């Protein structure tokens, strides 16, 4: 049991660090996916341990929502790149002003 949770935590920390540290929108996006999958792993692991299918069901939900999110997120990133010729999240500050 413990290795699954440790792997899940390590994956989550890697994902979070990626989001915090990297400027590129695509890489940060990948960090988010990584965190989602770390959470999925934790769900599945606990579902298995408790013999309860709910965790596995939620993992499926997360996958579906993540797939939808990827579609929308990538579309946003592509259109951002078209408009501004950059995908650095630090340069995307239109709403700030």
């Amino acid at each position, binding site marked *: 049991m413990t290795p699954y949770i440790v792997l899940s935590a390590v994956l989550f920390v890697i994902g979070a660090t990626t989001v915090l540290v990297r400027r590129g929108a695509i890489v940060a996006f990948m960090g988010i996916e990584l965190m989602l999958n770390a959470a999925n792993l934790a769900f599945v692991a606990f579902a298995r341990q408790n013999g309860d299918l709910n965790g596995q069901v939620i993992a499926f939900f997360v996958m579906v929502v993540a797939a939808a999110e990827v579609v929308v997120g990538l579309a946003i990133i592509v259109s951002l790149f078209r408009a501004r010729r950059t995908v650095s999240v*630090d340069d995307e500050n239109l709403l700030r002003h």
Partner: protein
Amino acid sequence: MTHTVALVTAATEVAAAPATGAIALMPLVVAIPLTSAAILLLAGRRSDRWGHLLGVATPIAGFAIALAGLIDMLGHPADGRSFTAVLFTWIPDSPGGLAVEAAMRIDPLSLSFVLLVTFVGALIHIYSIAYMAHDADRRRFFAYLNLFVAAMCLLVLADSFAVLFVGWEGVGLASYLLIGFWNRRTQYAVAAKKAFIANRIGDVGLLVAMGLMVANFGTLDFAGVFAEAGEASTGLATAIGLALLLAACGKSAQFPLQSWLGDAMAGPTPVSALIHAATMVTAGVYLVVRSLPIYVQAPTARLVVVIVGAITLVFGAVVGAAKDDMKKVLAASTMSQIGYMMLAAGLGPVGAAFAIMHLLTHGFFKAGLFLGAGSVMHAMGDQVDARRFGALRRAMPITWVTFMAGWLAILGVPPFAGFWSKDRIIEAAFVGDGAAPWVFGTVALLGAGMTAFYMSRLFFMVFQGKARWTDDAHPHEPSPLMTGPMIVLAVGSVALGWVLSATGFTGWLAPVIGPADHGDPVLHVPVITVATLVLVAAGVALAWRMYAARPVPVLPPPGGRLVRAARADLYQDAVNNELLVKPGGAVVTAAAATDTYVVDGAVRGVAWLAVAVGRVVRLVQNGYVRSYAATMVAGVIVLVAVVLAWRV
């Protein structure tokens, strides 16, 4: 004294009959000049051509009505000469119980005043036609003079303190407007403001007195107040008496509110003659005499009135003896003579009738002196420095003779007017027990000598000696429009005292202020009269030696300490400045500083705080997605830490 109390109370309780006949017309004495003033002010430049004629006609009409009223009143028995004319209900009877009728009281006292105001007023209006002939604003001048006559008549005809107060404020307003008539000169405008403010301080006294009356008597009518005053406690009567005295001091330029009168000479000379010599400044004496039933209950308040009168008497005489400005000498002399009247009024029934008699004779001779001064100024190109006159008796014989009549009258030389009234005041000052009659009698006696000195000094400097004119002076007698009133007033200065004494003026006033209680002076009457005349003669002789026998220097000599103090009005302005203006200024500065630093500081502080908080919090909203994400992570970590800590 007990029997005089009874007499005065009885006298005021004589029921006032409704006015009939010519007496019922008396409200017109107020209404006519008031209407005229309104017409002249509202019609503006359209009435420039005929404005002065309308202005002159109204006091003459007023005098005619008052004269008809006098004849009518003389037809009634002595104890039935108080009349009231109710105009309208001013304050209807309210749950609080205070009802005020706008009513007029026509009795011998108020009628005497109305006759004085309208007669002297009419003469001065006539004089002003010529005196103000070259002033572009002559119509406005007449409008203000009419306003003054209306307000003054309302003041003396009022049947309650509330109506009196309206007239009281009206004369204050007219005085302010007329002192500052030539307000192109800042100095004159400042003088007007000074008079107005000094008068306001006095008005506070009148308001306090009225407040005390409403609170304790529940009425402001003369009849009601005086009936209640008979049973009032001494403390209450003293409080009301002192508050009324404050009002009288402001209006009559008595110590310590006297500083405005000298500066009030900034107004045109006819104004000084009418308002600041003959009528308005005597309103304080009227107030004290009218309120005699209150003062009868308050010996302390009466004593204070006498002391104030005595101080002012000497004060005015000292100032008058040192001034070189002709009008300021006359102003100081007015102050001093009103001091005599206040002294007499404060003596109670012994002197009140003579206070009014002196007020009437003074109204004539002082107005005459001022008109003479105006005539001299007119002839000498508005010069007022008496050191620049001299030898005017040949150039202006009519002015010389009329001025001489006024001079002899104010000196109290028999048989001129002042003798009959002032001598009786000095006698009355010697009546009483203990040290008081000796002190006040001596002051009044010495005052007569000082009056003789400073008035003779002025007379000799102006009319006798050698000519010390400036090169551009071409003295000449003014037009008959100016000499006419001067001659009439001179005749009054000669004869009025004798006429009033011979016709029993004190008996005429008796129904209002009680019979003139003779009392026995502590000295024999002939001794007092002789002493007065000796002192007057000494004053004249001294003035002759110093200012007629010897040449008068054109530039004032440096003089001793007293002379310099008197030239500076005995430092009254400096004292006021230190005692009142500076602390007042400090309070204002403190209030302004409080506003700037505390009130505004609080408002600005709140704004600054918002900005400062914003400046710090803004740093969080930096627009970097990663920074927001970091915040979220930090928040999650904190939450997890809290939850774990909770569980453990």
